[in-house]
C-alpha cells in the first residue's frame, strides 16, 4: 500500500504550491501516472479518498493522465509498446530495453480559485 505514501506526497506538494500563491483551496489537480510506474490505480483511488480528507485537496477535481509504457530495444533499436516490464522486443525478442515512457509520476498542474 505504498500508494498511500504517494498520495500523501501529492498532498504535501500541492499544499506547498498553493501556499506560494496564498490559495486556501485547489479546484483541480492534474497528475501524470505512467502505466509502468508501479502504481495500482484501485489502491491509489482508495488511498486518495482517505488521505485528502481535511486537506487542501479535499474538494479538488482530480485529472489523471495514464501514460502508456513504451521502450526502445537496446539490441535492434525497435520502439515498442511495453505493457509489462518483462515484455520483449517484438522484432528480435531481446529483453534488453530502455524504457522511454510509462515511468512518469508527476504533479503537472493545479487550478486555484480566484
Amino acid at each position, binding site marked *: 500500500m505504498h500508494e498511500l*505514501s504517494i498520495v500523501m506526497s501529492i498532498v504535501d506538494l500541492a499544499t*506547498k*504550491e498553493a501556499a506560494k500563491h496564498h490559495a486556501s483551496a485547489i479546484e483541480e489537480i492534474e497528475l501524470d501516472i505512467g502505466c509502468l510506474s508501479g502504481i495500482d490505480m484501485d489502491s491509489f483511488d482508495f488511498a486518495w479518498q482517505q488521505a485528502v480528507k481535511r486537506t487542501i485537496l479535499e474538494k479538488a477535481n482530480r485529472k489523471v493522465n495514464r501514460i502508456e509504457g513504451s521502450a526502445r530495444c537496446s539490441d535492434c533499436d525497435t520502439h515498442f509498446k511495453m505493457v509489462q516490464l518483462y515484455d520483449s522486443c517484438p522484432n528480435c525478442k531481446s529483453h534488453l530495453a530502455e524504457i522511454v515512457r510509462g515511468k512518469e509520476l508527476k504533479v*503537472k498542474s493545479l487550478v*486555484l480559485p*480566484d
Partner: protein
Amino acid sequence: MCATCGCGPTSHHEHDHGHSHENTQKTGKTIVDVEQDILQENNLLAARNRGFFEGRNILAINLVSSPGSGKTSLLERTLTDLKGTLSFAVIEGDQQTANDADRIHATGTKVTQINTGKGCHLDAHMVLHAVQGMKLSADSVLFIENVGNLVCPAMFDLGEQERAVVISVTEGEDKPLKYPDMFHTSTLCIINKTDLLPYVKFNVEKAKEYARQVNPSLEIIELSCTSGEGMQQWYDWLKSKVLTPA
C-alpha cells in the same frame, strides 16, 4: 509520514523545488504549472544519503524480499563469517519489534532498528535519521534490511549503491514475473535456501530465466545460509563491490 522522529508532512525538511509557472485565465482562476516528480522529496533525501555514503566510502546495500525469505539469516551468517574481514553496520526495517535488531546485535555488529508502524517500506528520510544516530565508520559496509514486502519498497530509493532482492526456493519460481518492479530495480538477486531444493518443486533455471526477462543485467547468486553452499560466491561479490581505500 515519519516513523523515526515524528515529523509529519507539514514539518518535513524544506527544499526549494525550483520554480513553477502560472497564468491567470479570464475567469480569474490561476493555473499553476507544477511539473514536479511526486517522489522528488524522497529522491532528494536519497541523493543526500548517497553523497554521504560515497564521501565515506560506505557501501550501502538495500536488502529487499518478501517476508521469510531469509534476509536476516543471510546477514547473521555473513556478519559472523566475515567478522574481521570487513567492517559492517546494519539498519533493520520492520513494522514492529526489535527482534531482527536483537539477532544482528548478537553477532556483535552495530545495528539500528526502524519500526515503520503501519508503513510498508523504508524511505530515504527514515534512513537519513537512522544514519545520523549511527556514527558509521569510513570504508565500511552498511546493510539496510527493508520491510519484508516485494511490492512497496521498490519505488523508494534510499541512497543505496546496490539493491539485492532475496527469494527462497520455498516460494514460487515466478516471483520475478509477479513482482517485476522489485526485480527491475535490483542489481543482485539471491536465491536462498538451496539446501531445500530436493524437497520442493522450485525450478531454479526457470526462476533465473524469469528474473532475467525482467532485468537482463541482474546478477544472480544461489546459496544456502544453512548449509553454507554458495556463500563464498556472495562474499566474493560483496568484496568486489567494496572500494578499498588507496
